[in-house]
């Protein structure tokens, strides 16, 4: 829609105004802040905590849209049992989202809208304004956003920030973004000179990032189709601890389980949805005892297939955005990049 310029000081006061403004509506501003030597997406109450210079976050900002745990319904078991859905959505600003995670959110939007729309996700999404942030430096050697084409984004955000040194260039992409900006900040329209600076910054970043896949990711679905019986799966299965960390940190993983929780007196309870993982032993097990994906090798294969093939077949885009979190977190040092490259080499 338009390109605006926001001084760094003006951004700080905007965050200040946003946190106050959203808190008064019962909402929140969620952004990156430090946790030990790492970073997490958490509600920002004090703008001084906001760390837009973060490299990557432990969990993806997805958790603001699909929480680790959320109530789906509350029920009473006393007398006539009854149950009522709960939609836990509140006005939210999701601030500082890197473009890899932005691509992931766009995929989740498709997932939760398809066929049977999921009101719990969609209502939350509807009330969320996304202010994303252009990465100008690679986070570490595990990310491969450049290979996956997620090093930048031209949609999926309301406002998009690019650090120009003393100010941010703000790409205003939606009406919601425009409204938020005019209400909470004083931004100026970008001048010719600003646009020149922006272009300079954007082209300067490109060579700093490395291609880590040895091939075009468009080949992934085809390569994986030919690799169903590849020895790699057995090898990964031997190393994998089936801990589920890789899927827990993945910005495009959305599988969940639903459990009933009850109070001490067993009179009332909640139906709660929480993240689940296809890497866990019981994921595909039915009550009768049959486990339809029993071996760890099959479960690792399933994860790779989901990321590089199955999700693509259903939604038209790859299920991996190259954020590198699964590689960073794996206790067994299983690398999806190495895995994809191995398959490319040998298929």
């Amino acid at each position, binding site marked *: 829609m338009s390109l605006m310029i926001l001084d760094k000081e003006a951004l700080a006061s905007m965050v200040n105004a946003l946190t106050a403004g959203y808190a008064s509506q019962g909402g929140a501003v969620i952004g990156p802040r430090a946790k030990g030597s790492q970073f997490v997406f958490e509600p920002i109450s004090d703008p001084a905590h906001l760390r837009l210079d973060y490299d990557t976050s432990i969990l993806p900002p997805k958790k603001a849209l699909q929480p680790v745990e959320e109530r789906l319904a509350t*029920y009473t078991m006393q007398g006539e049992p009854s149950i009522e859905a709960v939609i836990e959505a509140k006005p939210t600003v999701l601030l500082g989202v890197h473009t890899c995670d932005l691509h992931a959110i766009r995929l989740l939007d498709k997932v939760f809208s398809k066929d049977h729309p999921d009101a719990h996700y969609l209502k939350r999404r509807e009330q969320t304004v996304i202010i994303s942030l252009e990465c100008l430096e690679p986070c570490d050697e595990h990310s491969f956003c450049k290979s996956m084409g997620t090093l930048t984004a031209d949609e999926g955000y309301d406002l998009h920030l690019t650090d120009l040194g003393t100010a941010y260039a703000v790409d205003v992409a939606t009406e919601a973004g425009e409204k938020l900006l005019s209400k909470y900040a004083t931004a100026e329209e970008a001048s010719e000179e600003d646009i020149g600076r922006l272009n300079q910054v954007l082209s300067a970043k490109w060579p700093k990032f490395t291609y880590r896949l040895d091939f075009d990711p468009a080949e992934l679905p085809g390569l994986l189709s030919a690799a169903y019986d590849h020895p790699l799966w057995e090898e990964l299965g031997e190393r994998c601890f089936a801990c589920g960390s890789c899927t827990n940190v993945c910005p495009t993983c959305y599988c969940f389980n639903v459990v009933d929780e009850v109070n001490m007196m067993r009179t009332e309870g909640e139906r709660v949805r929480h993240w*689940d993982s296809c890497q866990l032993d019981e994921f595909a097990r039915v009550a009768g005892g049959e486990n339809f994906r029993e071996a760890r090798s099959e479960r690792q294969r399933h994860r790779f297939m989901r990321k590089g093939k199955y999700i693509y077949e259903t939604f038209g885009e790859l299920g991996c955005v190259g954020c590198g979190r699964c590689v960073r977190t794996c206790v067994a040092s299983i690398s999806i990049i190495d895995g994809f490259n191995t398959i490319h080499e040998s298929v």
Partner: protein
Amino acid sequence: MTTSIYEPEMARLTKVEQIGPLEKLFAIELPDGRNLGHDPGQFVELSILGIGEAPISITSSPSRSNGSFELCVRQVGDVTNALHQMEAGDKVGIRGPFGHGFPVEKMRGKDVLFAPGGLGLAPLRSLINQVLDERSLFSRVIILCGAKRPEELLFRDELEEWVERDDVECHITVDRGNDEWDGHVGVITTLFPKVNINPRNTVAVTCGPPIMYRFVIMEMLGKGIPETQIYLSLERRMKCGVGKCGHCQINNLYCCQDGPVFNYADIKGIEEAL
């Protein structure tokens, strides 16, 4: 968008009947006596508040709806154990019906061969009774039914009725007999040599324990039935029923949405299917 796809509707158990060593038949009535509006082969998510939710195939046929539907449930997990403690009048949550059922319209005018094994009779019964209620629209009806032991044969009255009927060819077998059993003994595949079929004009349908499919399908193919005319209903952990939670994935398919009824030709190349 404020309604949740995960909110069940509270429905009333109107009848509970023990029909197998671990199996009970439950008749369930939706509020206002509304029909469930299902296709044979579809399933519902049944929930018991405080315990959880489980996918259960619908065993009654749409042709016999009358304001209620039936589930045949084996007592085997948390939800089903709790359900088995319940009585007529108690309330359960229902979501659905979900998934793709059997393509009845493609079976009309054809010979229909049913091969249910054990509890696999539960989902197939919805189709068998639909076919029998529209008997004139189908050609031959052949039922080859197996169970582990005689006491595990479900819907005994109906099985006897099918055996008695002149317009149904029903053969029953058990893997192991007992003193009272004077019927056929042997696994379900041993019933296939008993029937002559016209393969081109036959649609075959099977459901049973996971181990059974490969062998039954081999018999069906051995009879010359084309792959495209074989249908299977598969069991998976269909937790959400709406293609989201991921537990029921069969490679790139979601059993709860793409199935639970599949055409054999469509899934024979899907490695995790059978």
